[in-house]
């Protein structure tokens, strides 16, 4: 597709602080990308531990381990941590590391802002989890117990943990907005000469749409939680019918952000998939233009479908019908993406290294997420499935199999480029098979639980649900433990391992593979020219 004509120039020795100061002060996109990815991995385990405690409680009917309030706190913080502190930072880490390398830019366009975007994350993570600690000292009653959706009026009446979560969401929002502005500016202004928008790598396209969605929707979430804050402490009546407000208004505002958020988590992965599939099929990605237009179509549709998250809350019939059909319309561009992914592999000389295994696993499992989503989009069917474990299983197929496994695809694909070392293929493959097996062991039973009527977010359940819950808990623990292999594999790869060449994978195309592995601290200082 594109050929570099010049290489990164040798950079004269400059003074950079070492040790901790290097990470606190850095303006380098590779350092910042590394920090994002490390933070994401740590928070992935934090959020995972929370949900393992939840699954342990659900292993048997009855209350064994915790009070219901604590159970509620764990599920809410698990979701916020996984979405805002694990998945989104991982995608931003990818963007930071790879976008400049892929589009031939010397760095991100706004490097200091970039550093700020990252360093807002640890304070927000502390704010999210601090209420747990404070409760141990008798201050407050723990973290928010409303689930991650903050629904009013429960959140208006909730304890101090809700305030912590509101402020954490504000800070996380500022972080993501700064990251998005930086990514948009980088893509528009930093491309190598000759790289037109329609020669842009698909990963950059995926992130561009993601960044637009973040800019369009995160401020609305900020506004919504601000109204919640004033309802809680300053006497306003946004979500109180006695004052002319409406609790359902909160659901509208929240899901105006919340639904695009799903695509915010997934679009970077969809952008990454064609790169991996084409590399290991030794064929160019099929349907570049179709994929770009699908990204745009999904981005546009995603902001007009939000109310399908609360079909049962009470809406006029015309609104229900509109939101049902607009939701189902998303399956058209999404199906285009699926066909492009499959067509990329068609007649390809496929080899199955770990990233390719994850990519193929992603296509199959994410397909299940899409198909079960169609069931939930149906207003009549949703009347039964809403707020059941069917929903839980559905969105874990989307966000674990789609989001997290997509991120793992990217990590295995680019880790040798970042570190200059090969990870252990054997461990990687073991990690893949354990993950796929235990993921399905965890979540297939939850489909059946939901169909049978088990509600989500309840610490106790009827005896008829016992077997499936026990299986699901078993799967969750295997799933959690097998992620230790992932962390160990990354650790070993960072520390050492066989050296790799600049073009790590023999079928890989693109500017990022023209640079050495690991790339020099400053790359593309002289931009390549794309023919």
């Amino acid at each position: 597709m594109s050929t570099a004509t010049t290489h990164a120039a040798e950079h004269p020795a400059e003074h950079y602080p070492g040790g901790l100061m290097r990470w606190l002060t850095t303006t380098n996109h590779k350092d910042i990308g590394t920090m994002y990815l490390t933070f994401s991995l740590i928070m992935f385990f934090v959020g995972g531990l929370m949900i393992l405690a939840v699954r342990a409680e659900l292993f048997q009917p009855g209350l064994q381990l915790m009070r219901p309030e604590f159970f509620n706190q764990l599920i809410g913080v698990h979701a916020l941590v996984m979405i805002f502190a694990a998945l989104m930072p991982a995608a931003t880490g990818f963007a930071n590391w790879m976008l400049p390398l892929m589009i031939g830019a010397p760095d991100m366009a706004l490097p200091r802002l970039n550093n700020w975007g990252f360093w807002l994350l640890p304070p927000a993570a502390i704010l999210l989890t601090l209420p747990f600690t404070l409760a141990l000292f008798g201050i407050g009653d723990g973290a928010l117990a409303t689930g991650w959706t903050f629904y009013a009026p429960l959140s208006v009446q909730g304890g101090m943990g809700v305030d912590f979560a509101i402020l954490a969401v504000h800070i996380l929002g500022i972080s993501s907005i700064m990251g998005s502005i930086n990514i948009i500016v980088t893509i528009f202004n930093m491309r190598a000469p000759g790289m037109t928008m329609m020669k842009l790598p698909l990963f950059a396209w995926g992130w561009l749409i993601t960044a637009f969605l973040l800019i369009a929707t995160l401020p609305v979430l900020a506004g919504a939680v601000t109204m919640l804050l004033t309802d809680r402490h300053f006497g306003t009546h946004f979500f109180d019918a006695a004052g002319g407000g409406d609790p359902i208004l909160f659901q509208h505002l929240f899901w105006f952000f919340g639904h695009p958020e799903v695509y915010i988590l997934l679009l970077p992965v969809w952008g990454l998939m064609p790169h991996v599939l084409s590399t290991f099929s030794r064929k160019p990605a099929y349907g570049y233009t179709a994929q770009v237009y699908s990204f745009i179509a999904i981005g546009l549709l995603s902001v007009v479908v939000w109310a399908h998250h609360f079909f049962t809350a009470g809406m006029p019939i015309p609104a229900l019908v509109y939101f049902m059909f607009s939701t189902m319309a998303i399956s058209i561009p999404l199906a285009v993406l699926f066909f492009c992914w499959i067509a990329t592999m068609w007649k390809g000389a496929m080899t199955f290294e770990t990233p390719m295994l994850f990519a193929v696993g992603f296509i199959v499992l994410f397909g299940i997420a899409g198909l079960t989503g169609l069931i939930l989009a149906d207003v009549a069917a949703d009347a039964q499935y809403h707020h059941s474990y069917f929903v839980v299983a559905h969105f874990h197929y989307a966000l674990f199999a789609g989001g997290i496994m997509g991120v793992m695809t990217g990590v295995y694909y680019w880790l040798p480029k970042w570190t200059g070392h090969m990870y252990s293929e054997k461990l990687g493959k073991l990690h893949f098979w354990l993950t796929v097996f235990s993921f399905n062991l965890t979540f297939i039973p939850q489909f059946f639980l939901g169909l049978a009527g088990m509600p989500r977010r309840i610490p106790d359940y009827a005896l008829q649900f016992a077997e499936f819950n026990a299986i699901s808990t078993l799967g969750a623990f295997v799933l959690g433990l097998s992620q230790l292999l992932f962390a160990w594999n990354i650790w070993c790869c960072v520390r050492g391992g066989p050296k790799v060449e600049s073009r790590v994978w023999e079928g890989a195309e693109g500017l990022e593979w023209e640079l050495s592995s690991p790339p020099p601290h400053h790359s593309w200082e002289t931009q390549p020219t794309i023919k």
Partner: protein
Amino acid sequence: MKANPAHATAGEHYFVPQPSLYPVILSGGMFLLALGFIQLINNFGPGKWVMLGGTAVILYVLFGWFGKVIYESQSGAYRDWEDRSFRYGMIWFIATEVMFFAAFFGALFYVRVISVPTLGGMLPEHGFSLWPEFAGTWPTSGPKGAAFTPMGAWGIPALNTALLLSSGATVTWAHWGLLRNKRRQLALGLAATVLLGSVFLGFQAYEYHHAYNELGLTMGAGAYGATFFMLTGFHGFHVTLGTIMLLVILLRSLSGHFSAERHFAFEAVAWYWHFVDVVWLILFVFVYWV
């Protein structure tokens, strides 16, 4: 699709700033501010002092970081390529601000079009009403709200509209002065804009005082009070920020910064000011007038 920027002159290097401690300190300050605020509204710990500490840290960074940027700008580190990054960045930042206000306007339209009429039993698909005596007309403080007098449009608000519109004109006049190298016109225009912004804020403060003490219109006055104070309050906050930014630009232009060719900071603040202006117009129509 977008044309590729024509910056491909050989040997041009993008300005990548040296490592800086400001971002991480700023994050620390914001953490303190948030933590202190939570302490304050939940009555535990020395919340006020934590907030004060956080504010001090943030102010330190604002001075330091912007000072550094101004220094870099004056020493010629930024050329067309970097300038374009700042422009795109500011445009998309203003886009996020638009969406932030959209959330509150969305809430206003929702209560006016859906929740208040529904509570008044005015929508045909709701056959009954929880509060039969509630009429469901706007303005309202809801079925259980206390009585209040809504804010009229043609007193101070209309005057404020005139003030902000003229301030948009004066800032553009200052820009013309800058473009034609008439430094006096630049300084006068900016000073007039700062003055108009300050008078607007003074009127707004008076209006709030009037609302609380004579009209019974408070944040607690139901859907009307909530949307009124949140929309005008956040707008007033943005006018305050804009006025401070304009003041900085005025001081900078008095000390000889900006040229007719290179004055991104001026333009960014002017864009911001126009954005605040447009928000006010929408606000005037939907909050005060109709």
